[in-house]
């Protein structure tokens, strides 16, 4: 720990080919689904990056690419300048220890036939942590007590279906913690949990970042929660980053029309926070056949001819605040 670990993503693409129904009933047409369409960012140790966007914006695909559950069509992922492809070829388990992921659905994260003890101990064994079985069990017990699952002995012999969503999600985070990852991706980690336990999970993730300098990528559609936890925010639309920057810059001074719409539609419990909702047309589209213009143009409330002709370049708004729109004056 302490060493400055950085994650660098350069021009990452992930395209799928999909057959969809053609003009008549029997013909199919091959279409390219651009799930992730050219993404670059940089993340340093101890930083928290929030990724927000609607379903279909490619945020989950990005998570899978980073953890190598899927492989990119193009582009590279570098850890401290070292190519991730090289790393995983050399030592698969070391790569897994570098970057870990917490899944959205805690009820299905574990093999339903394994007890909690088996789930944790097998993970430790796989990564050669601890020497004997009892060694690993006591590691598991210690870690569980630390996150408030005590007495841990009570939980060890239970099966996933006997625990609540909040408890399972804590165990899921704990399991990744035991591997001491440098980077953690949390893909909508609280969206399936009850409101009263969400805060605990968020706090647990925050502690993890503070105590072990782990960098966190927090993927969510919930802007309020993302704001709470992250240092910087990336707004994605149809596989591309439309706006990014320091959390408060982006959320309090959004410049991209999509970010503005997203924030204005976000319900809040604060009664005096009510703002006028920006209305846009259409439904969230699928990432097929976009462009050549700005992907958001068909739904945008300030579209002009130029928006349909070319994709806007990324512009610098202020320090650490970038957006891609034709109608932004860059400084």
């Amino acid at each position, binding site marked *: 720990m302490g060493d400055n670990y950085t994650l660098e993503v350069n021009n990452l693409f992930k395209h799928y080919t999909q057959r969809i129904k053609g003009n008549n009933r029997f013909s199919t047409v091959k279409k390219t689904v651009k799930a992730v369409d050219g993404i670059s960012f940089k993340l340093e140790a101890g930083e928290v990056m929030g990724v927000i966007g609607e379903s279909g914006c490619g945020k989950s695909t990005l998570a899978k690419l980073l953890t190598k559950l899927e492989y990119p069509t193009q582009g590279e992922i570098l850890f401290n300048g070292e190519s991730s492809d090289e790393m995983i070829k050399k030592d698969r388990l070391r790569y897994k220890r570098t970057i870990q992921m917490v899944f959205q659905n805690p009820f299905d994260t574990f093999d339903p036939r394994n007890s909690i003890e088996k789930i944790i101990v097998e993970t430790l064994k796989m990564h050669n942590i601890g020497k004997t079985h009892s060694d690993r069990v006591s590691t598991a017990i210690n870690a569980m007590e630390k996150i408030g699952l005590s007495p841990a002995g009570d939980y060890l012999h239970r099966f996933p279906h006997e625990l609540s969503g909040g408890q399972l999600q804590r165990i899921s985070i704990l399991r990744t913690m035991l591997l001491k990852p440098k980077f953690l991706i949390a893909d909508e980690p609280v969206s399936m949990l009850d409101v*009263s336990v969400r805060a605990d999970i968020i706090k647990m993730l925050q502690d993890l970042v503070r105590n072990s300098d782990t960098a966190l990528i927090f993927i969510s559609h919930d802007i309020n929660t993302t704001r*709470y936890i992250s240092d910087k925010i990336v707004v994605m639309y149809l596989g591309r980053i439309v706006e990014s920057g320091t959390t408060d810059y982006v*959320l309090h001074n959004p410049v991209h029309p999509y970010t503005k719409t997203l924030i204005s539609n976000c319900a809040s419990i604060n009664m005096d926070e009510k703002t006028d909702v920006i209305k846009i047309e259409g*439904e969230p589209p699928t990432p097929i056949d976009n462009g050549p213009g700005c992907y958001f143009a068909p739904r945008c409330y300030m579209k002009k001819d130029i928006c349909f002709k070319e994709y806007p370049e990324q512009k610098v708004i202020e320090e650490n605040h970038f957006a891609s729109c034709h109608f932004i004056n860059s400084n």
Partner: protein
Amino acid sequence: MALLSIKNENVIYKVKNKNIHAVNNVSFDIEPQDSLGIVGESGSGKSTLALSMLRLLPKKIAEVSGEVIFEDRNLLTISEDELRDIRWKEISVVFQKSMNSLSPIHKIGSQMSDIYMLHNKTASKAEVKNKMTELLELVNLPPRVYTMYQHELSGGMMQRVSIALSLMHNPKLIIMDEATTALDVITQGQILNEIKELEKRLSIARIMITHDMSVVANTCKKIAVMYAGYLVEFGYVDDVISNPNHPYTRGLLKSFPTLKGERGVLRGISGSLPDLSVQHDGCIFESRCPERSESCHKEKPGTVILENGRMVMCHSAGRR
């Protein structure tokens, strides 16, 4: 006069020799053109309450007692035929996945017409088609949806069709059970706005069941907070959110991060839902309550009625 008034309603599920008290002694009124949000976590009995009002729970396992008075009729005792008339015509329900109940191989329009014809058997074809296009327009859907199939619609469009269906017979009350939960932020925001405008125009009362307090804060006049089958707090949204009186409501509000202002300490509510199959002597929230005292353990709190129709079920309510 109240449009719908619920008096001392109880729902008990009988499963495997256990009696699970899903709804306990809930009473409240809904005025015409009111909008009420029922919030609570999973297992709080909010959906059970709504379904039981229309007797939609399986009779074999659910035992409902109390009174649900809708325009001088007790929905829990009237005959099955009468109830069928009220459902959809006067009270309609939109579920989270309403569209799943429609057939994937028939066009949206023809299914909508079929449903319409169930209650209006004499309507002519042209008349029905007109009415359907009108309905689709009402929820901001293009007329081409009439000839589309279920799988060609996005989640937001499907939910709009469900809302259109529920508005078909100009109901007086519409119940939305997590109707916008699964939708994207923007779509949800837009649909909620449309609903607000629609009910003004058509003078409909609405009950909104959700776990998302912010949705209620933005779209409802009144709020009912449920916990473990009890109605713990009830009142106008502005009152409840700016000055929550029950510790559970306070806890829920503290678990929500806000978009602006300081990033205060986010706090969850420790512990978990109590076992609803055993009787509790004291307050149901006692085991998780940060402000519990001696009497909370021994005695069930009564419902304290405060100004402005506010109801709170807590020993310390009104004393502060």
